[in-house]
């Protein structure tokens, strides 16, 4: 039931010349957009193109400065998220909108008026029904904090569907999901659309947009630059559609349309990192990291695949020194480092690019210059006898900013005012500085716009080529297969298999991922 509305039926929702300004930014510039019932509408755009603002306007978080929002042809004004919900618009936000200390069911009750009562059994019935609609199974009485990220994402969708029965907005909903989960999601969404719902699927993953959307719209710099029906795009063939969209998104002829060639097969050398029987301290609600064995040679990229939340993060933290090693060995260049601290491991060339860029990787309120040196506080020449050397720090920041093409007003700008892509460029610059020997990349491209994604992947390749070993953790199997020499698959805190990359790797890895979770 795709794209049968050639503008005859009135659209469920119409944006009419909607404009929204923030101080110094024109976030949405006279956008006109229709959303139809029964249609999956993919909204593509780089970071900062205005997608989040558009969602905020639709979900009642913000109000437009100019223009109108029409539902069934009637002008409406959402003064609060509640108003949007009452109009049947449910939203799955990029950042979790669930309370970790409540159970799944309690989270779903959240939002009802307080006098309405909990209606426990009715809620449970409805929950089961919606789970069936989506084709998923979720524990109703578990604390949300005990669920995996993928499960939480599904709870988010169930929650959005609870009241948003006409339009479902998904903001980067697939970002945290494995490819298997993404196709589950696609199936679920198609089912919902078939029941007559409108779905706005916001993403910056081009293939997903093409695969999901009945219609693809593209935002650039706050303006709607194109809106194409899927049928129209398919007619021209995938290759051409992709390159056209990329040029629309970035306003430049696409050079990166072709999938990257598989990496050259890797020659085994003496390992630079050896991990044996590693067990690390993990919280009660985390996967228990245990029995980890692998080794890594100079110049090798080892991909770590698996459903998110199966111990990848714990592994990275244990290697980096953020978690106590309970058993086993970690050898870096032949030296046992499992008892060494984070800075000691860092000095020996072990680097960790975290996936939690703003949560732990940086301090948004601090200037760029200090964020660049967070892991070298006290080191010469930036500090002498413990005293800050402002000139050295500024010069270094200035140089890094220009060398890595970070778009920022200056070294004293708070990091929080940078876009996500520039933050990641900064973190990459920080981790790859000096002489790294082993770099752990945790979701290095997650949530980034296309160009920064390419840039990050390029950096990983370049580093490997110069002899740096890499552990590449990513939920995106395509990315892993495009970059890695070997692929380790994690499930429930263990490595369930390590596969050489090659033509059959996708299938083998896929099987391990599915088998590991069974």
């Amino acid at each position, binding site marked *: 039931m795709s794209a049968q509305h050639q503008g005859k039926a009135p659209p469920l929702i119409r944006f009419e010349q909607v404009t929204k300004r*923030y101080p110094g930014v024109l976030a949405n510039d006279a956008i006109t957009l229709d959303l139809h019932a029964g249609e999956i509408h993919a909204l593509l755009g780089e970071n900062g193109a205005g997608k989040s603002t558009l969602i905020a306007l639709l979900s009642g978080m913000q109000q437009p400065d100019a223009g109108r929002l029409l539902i069934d042809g009637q002008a409406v004004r959402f003064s609060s998220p509640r108003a949007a919900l009452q109009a049947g618009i449910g939203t799955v936000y990029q950042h979790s909108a669930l309370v970790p200390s409540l159970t799944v069911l309690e989270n779903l009750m959240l939002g009802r008026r307080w006098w309405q009562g909990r209606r426990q059994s009715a809620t449970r019935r409805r929950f089961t029904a919606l789970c069936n609609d989506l084709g998923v199974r979720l524990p109703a009485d578990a604390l949300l904090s005990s669920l995996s990220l993928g499960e939480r994402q599904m709870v988010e969708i169930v929650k959005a569907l609870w009241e948003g029965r006409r339009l479902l907005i998904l903001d980067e909903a697939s970002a945290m999901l494995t490819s298997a989960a993404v196709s589950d999601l696609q199936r679920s969404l198609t089912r919902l659309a078939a029941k007559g719902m409108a779905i706005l699927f916001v993403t910056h993953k081009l293939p997903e947009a093409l695969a999901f959307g009945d219609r693809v719209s593209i935002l650039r710099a706050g303006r709607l630059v194109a809106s194409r029906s899927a049928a129209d795009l398919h007619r021209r063939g995938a290759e051409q559609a992709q390159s056209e969209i990329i040029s629309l998104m970035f306003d430049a002829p696409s050079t990166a349309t072709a999938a990257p060639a598989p990496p050259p097969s890797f020659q085994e050398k003496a390992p630079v990192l050896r991990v044996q029987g590693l067990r690390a301290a993990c919280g009660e609600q985390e996967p228990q990291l245990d029995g980890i064995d692998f080794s890594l040679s100079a110049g090798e990229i080892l991909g770590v695949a698996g459903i998110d939340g199966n111990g990848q993060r714990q592994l990275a933290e244990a290697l980096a020194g*953020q978690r106590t090693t309970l058993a086993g060995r970690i050898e870096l260049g032949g030296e046992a480092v499992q008892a060494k*601290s*984070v800075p000691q491991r*860092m000095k020996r060339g072990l680097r960790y690019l975290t996936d939690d860029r703003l949560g*732990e990787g940086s301090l948004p309120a601090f200037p760029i210059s*200090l964020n660049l040196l967070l892991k070298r*506080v*006290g080191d010469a020449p930036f500090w002498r006898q413990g005293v800050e050397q402002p000139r050295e720090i500024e010069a270094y920041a200035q140089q890094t900013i220009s060398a890595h093409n970070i778009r920022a007003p200056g070294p004293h700008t708070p990091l929080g*005012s940078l876009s996500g892509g520039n933050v990641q460029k900064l973190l990459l610059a920080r981790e790859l500085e000096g002489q790294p020997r082993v770099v752990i990349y945790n979701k290095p491209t997650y949530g980034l716009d296309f160009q920064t994604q390419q840039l990050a992947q390029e950096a990983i390749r370049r580093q490997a080529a110069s002899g740096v070993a890499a552990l590449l953790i990513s939920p995106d199997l395509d990315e892993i297969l495009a970059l890695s020499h070997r692929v380790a698959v994690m499930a429930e805190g263990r490595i369930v298999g390590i596969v050489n990359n090659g033509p059959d790797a996708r299938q083998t890895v896929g099987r391990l991922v599915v088998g590991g979770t069974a």
Partner: protein
Amino acid sequence: MTDIPQIVGRLLQALLPLLLALACGALLLLLLERDPVSFYATIIERGLLSRLGLQESLTRSAPLLLLAAGLIVAFRAGLWNLGVDGQFLLAAVITAALAPGLAATLPPWLALPLAMLAAFAVAALWAALPAFLKARYGVNEIITTLMMTFLGISLANLLIKLPFNDPATTSPQTLTLATADRLPRLLGSTVHLGLVIALLALLLVHWAMTRTALGLRLRILGANPLTARHVGLPVTGLTFLAFGLSAGLAGLAGAVEILGVWGTVRADWNPAYGMLVIPLVFLARFHGGAVIFFVFVFAVLSIGGETAARRADLPNYFLLVLVALILVFLALTEWLSARPLMRKRG
């Protein structure tokens, strides 16, 4: 960096809330049928302009500045040490107990620093338990430091009443340090050396927190403990250090107050300076210079206000209301000045 309009703006930002609070206070004074003009004139005249009053205001500032220095360390490190009053009092008692003996046996240049060191150590030790609970189990330090304050006050009284009691006095108090053995006074005034110590300590703390690697480490911990862990800072050690320094400086405040002014501690004495300094430090946004300004304003107000209230035949309670008004208006203007920034970020 420091162009004229900016300085004027900042000054206005500090003075405007004061003026607004004073205006509200004036209304209250009128309601009580007192003359606000002469009331405020007395405060300024007595607390700031008269020789005697200015000296008193400066003397009163000394312990407040040291407490503020301690709070800056803790607050910048993200640790809400609300237990400074207990740390202050306990250190004061230890100082008072040790000082007379030390002064009798050692030369003053050694006796006084030793007493201060002991005060610093005792207060730091008193904060070790909240530091341990915070570092080891993540127990919120607001609860633990508040409880340690209740405990500290009781313990200080017990110490005064039992082991440190001066048998010569009928009401329980420690031995008295002779006036001659106290901290030297500055240039024949009644202001003692403690003020210099306090100013130096505060400036040192400000410099250390903003310009040194250690300060940056503490600020990282304060900004986000997860980041501190990620970049490999010794979080436990830093927590102990921040608590120790913070409490130690509060203890030093107690020592300076005893060695410079009192010479003894009486049972049930608790000036509770911390409750006043805590909001001032917040309002100064942990900035050393701004803290000096706020503390001095408060000292002038408390010295001059006592006289003003007496002359106006008002109970001293009126000053509490005035201080509360100033705090609220300061907080409000701070909010107003921070608002455009918020918007930009949002």
